[in-house]
C-alpha cells in the first residue's frame, strides 16, 4: 500500500501542468459551490427572518375557517374578543398583538397623484401601541411618522410610494366592504413611509391604526388575527401547541404554515441552483476523467509492465484512483480556500441585488444586499466531494485500461 500511495503521489508530479489545470477546474467548481451555496443559504436565512419580522410573526392565531378562505380576507371569520386572548397570552409570558387585514380598492386622485386610477390593495390595521413589540417596523421610517391611534392615517411602503409617486401629506381613498358587506370609503392621510429589509413589504404595505379600521369596518373590536413573537431559539411546534392550549377554539399557525408558498419556492430555487452546481461538478468531473484517460493512455506500457511483474489489477486501479484523489485534494483545498476567501467578502459586504429586487419579485425576502453565511457543512462537503468525485470518475478509465490484455499493453504505441 505504501508503494501504491508513493506511486500515486509521484505521478501527480509527472505532468505538473495537467495536474494544475485539472485541479484548477475542480477548484473553480468548488469555489463557486461555496460562494453560491453561502449566498443562497444567507438569502434564505435573511428571508426567513424578514418574513417573521415584517409579515408573518412567529405564530398566528386565526379563526378556524379563516385559513381556508384567506384569499377573500373575510372579516366575519374573525377573533371576537382579541383583548381577552391577548391578556391570557401576556399572562402566559407571550408578546402578541392584534391586527385586521382587509382588501380594498385604493383610489388615486389627480389632485395629489400624477395619474388618476385605482389599485387593489391589502391593508394591515395594526394596534399602534403593541405592534412594534411583535413586528420590527421601529426604525424603518424613512419619512414622516407612524399613524396615531384613532386617526385617519396610513403608513405606506417606500417602493409602493415611489410607484404611485406618493409623498407624506397626500391623501388616499380606500373603498372596501365592512363586516356585514356594507360599502365603506376611508380617506386616509399618508403620514409616514417605511423602508424595511423585506421587499414584499416595501412593495405593498399599507398600515393604518387598528381602532380606525375597527370603526370603519364595523368590527366591534374583533381582529382577523393575533400575531405572537418568539425568540429565535424557541421550539416553534411546542410553542404552537402551548398557545393552542391557551386559545382553544382558534387555529394556531406557525410562520412555516403561513409562509408555505415562499418555502416551496425556496425549495424549488434550491433544486434549480443544485442543478447548476451539479453541472459545475460535471464539468470538473469531465476534466478529471479526461486527465485520467490520458494518463492511462500514456502509461499503458507501464501498466503492462506492472501487470507482467504480478501487480494485482486492484492495486493498479487503487494507484490511479489515489492519483485522481490527489488531484481532487489539491483542487478541493485550493477551491475551498478560494471559496472561503470569497465568502469572507460575501459575509461582510454581500452583493447588492437592489437593481433586480426593486422591479422584480425574486421570491427571497431580501430587499437589496444578499450576504453569505459560514457553513461548516458546506466547507466539509466541498472538501470531501472534491476528493470523492475525482476518485469516482477515475474508476471508469482505469477499468477500461485494465481490460486490455497484457501483451497489447506492452506493445501499445
Amino acid at each position, binding site marked *: 500500500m505504501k508503494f501504491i500511495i508513493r506511486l500515486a503521489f*509521484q505521478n501527480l508530479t509527472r505532468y505538473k501542468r495537467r495536474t494544475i489545470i485539472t485541479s484548477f477546474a475542480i477548484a473553480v467548481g468548488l469555489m463557486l459551490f461555496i460562494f453560491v451555496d453561502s449566498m443562497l443559504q444567507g438569502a434564505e436565512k435573511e428571508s426567513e427572518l424578514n418574513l417573521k419580522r415584517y409579515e408573518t410573526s412567529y405564530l398566528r392565531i386565526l379563526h378556524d375557517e379563516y385559513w381556508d378562505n384567506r384569499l377573500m380576507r373575510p372579516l366575519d371569520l374573525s377573533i371576537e374578543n382579541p383583548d381577552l386572548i391577548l391578556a391570557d397570552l401576556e399572562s402566559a409570558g407571550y408578546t402578541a398583538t392584534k391586527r385586521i387585514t382587509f382588501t380594498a380598492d385604493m383610489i388615486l386622485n389627480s389632485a395629489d397623484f400624477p395619474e388618476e386610477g385605482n389599485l387593489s390593495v391589502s391593508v394591515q390595521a395594526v394596534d399602534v401601541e403593541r405592534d412594534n413589540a411583535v413586528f420590527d417596523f421601529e426604525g424603518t421610517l424613512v419619512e414622516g411618522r407612524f399613524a396615531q391611534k384613532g386617526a385617519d392615517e396610513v403608513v405606506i411602503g417606500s417602493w409602493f410610494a415611489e410607484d404611485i409617486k406618493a409623498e407624506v401629506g397626500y391623501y388616499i381613498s380606500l373603498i372596501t366592504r365592512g363586516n356585514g358587506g356594507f360599502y365603506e370609503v376611508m380617506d386616509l392621510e399618508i403620514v409616514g413611509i417605511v423602508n424595511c429589509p423585506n421587499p414584499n413589504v416595501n412593495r405593498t404595505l399599507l398600515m393604518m391604526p387598528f381602532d380606525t379600521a375597527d370603526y370603519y369596518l364595523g368590527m366591534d373590536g374583533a381582529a382577523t388575527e393575533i400575531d405572537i413573537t418568539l425568540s429565535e431559539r424557541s421550539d416553534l411546534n411546542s410553542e404552537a401547541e402551548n398557545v393552542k392550549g391557551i386559545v382553544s377554539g382558534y387555529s394556531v399557525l406557525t410562520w412555516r404554515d403561513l409562509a408555505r408558498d415562499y418555502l416551496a419556492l425556496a425549495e424549488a430555487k434550491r433544486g434549480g441552483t443544485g442543478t447548476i452546481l451539479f453541472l459545475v461538478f460535471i464539468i470538473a468531473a469531465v476534466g478529471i476523467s479526461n486527465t485520467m484517460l490520458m494518463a492511462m493512455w500514456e502509461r499503458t506500457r*507501464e501498466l503492462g*509492465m506492472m501487470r507482467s*511483474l*504480478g501487480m*494485482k489489477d486492484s492495486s493498479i486501479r487503487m494507484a490511479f484512483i489515489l492519483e485522481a484523489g490527489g488531484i481532487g485534494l489539491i483542487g478541493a483545498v485550493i477551491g475551498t480556500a478560494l471559496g472561503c476567501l470569497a465568502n469572507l467578502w460575501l459575509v461582510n459586504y454581500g452583493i447588492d441585488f437592489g437593481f433586480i429586487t426593486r422591479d422584480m419579485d425574486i421570491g427571497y425576502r431580501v430587499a437589496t444586499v444578499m450576504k453569505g453565511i459560514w457553513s461548516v457543512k458546506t466547507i466539509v462537503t466541498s472538501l470531501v466531494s472534491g476528493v470523492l468525485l475525482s476518485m469516482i470518475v477515475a474508476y471508469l478509465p482505469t477499468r477500461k485500461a485494465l481490460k486490455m490484455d*497484457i*501483451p497489447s499493453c*506492452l506493445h501499445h504505441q
Partner: protein
Amino acid sequence: MIKIEGVTRNYKTGETEVKALRGIDLDVNDGEFLSIAGPSGSGKTTLLNLIGCIDSLDDGEITIDGVPVSRMDKHAKTTYRRENLGFIFQTYNLIPVLTAFENVSFVLSILGVPQGELSERTYRILREVGLEGMEHRRPDKLSGGQQQRIAIARALVKQPKIVLADEPTANLDSKTGEEILQLMKQMNRTYNTTFIFSTHDKMVMEYASRLVLLHDGEIASDTRRE
C-alpha cells in the same frame, strides 16, 4: 524445468486468422541461457508471452516445474508471475517518476517483503548490476544501458526461477548491448536463473547457450552450444 507441448496460438486480425504458433514442443532446463530467434512474425514474442503467463494458448500445454501454468486462471497466473517470473523489456518500461531504487524495490514491495530486507536486497542487486551510487537517480538521468541495468535488477531482485527478456538489446548500441549480455550471463551463472530471450540480434544469439530458431510459428532448428 519448462515443458512446452503442442502449443498452438492463433490471432484474429480483422477477418484474417494468423497462426502465430503451430504445435510447438520445447523443453527448457533450469539455468539455461536460451535465445529464441527468428524473423518478424515468426512467433518468438508470442512464445515468450505464453511462457511468461501473460497470454493464453489455444491448444497444448505449458508446465513449469510440473505446474500446468497454461491452465491457470487470470488471478493464479498473476500470483505465479509475481512469485516466480522476471521480465526484461526492449524499452525497459521503467516508471519515470521513481528512482532506480524504487523501480527495483517495488517488485519486492508487492511480494510483501519487509522494509529492512527490501532495502538490503535492492541495494545489493543494484550494486551487482553496476549501479552503486546511482540508486536515487531517476531513469531520465541515466543512459539507455544504465536503464536496462535497472530493468535487469528489477527482474532479478526477487530471485525468480525464470527471466524472460524480449529483445533486451534492441535499443542499445553494440558495446552497451554486449555489456548487458555479459551482465545477464553473469547473473545466470550466479543465481542459476533460467534466461529466455527473444531476439533478432546476432550477438545475443552468440551469447546464448542454446538457440531455438522459429519460422512461421514452428521450430526450424534447436541448437545447443558450449
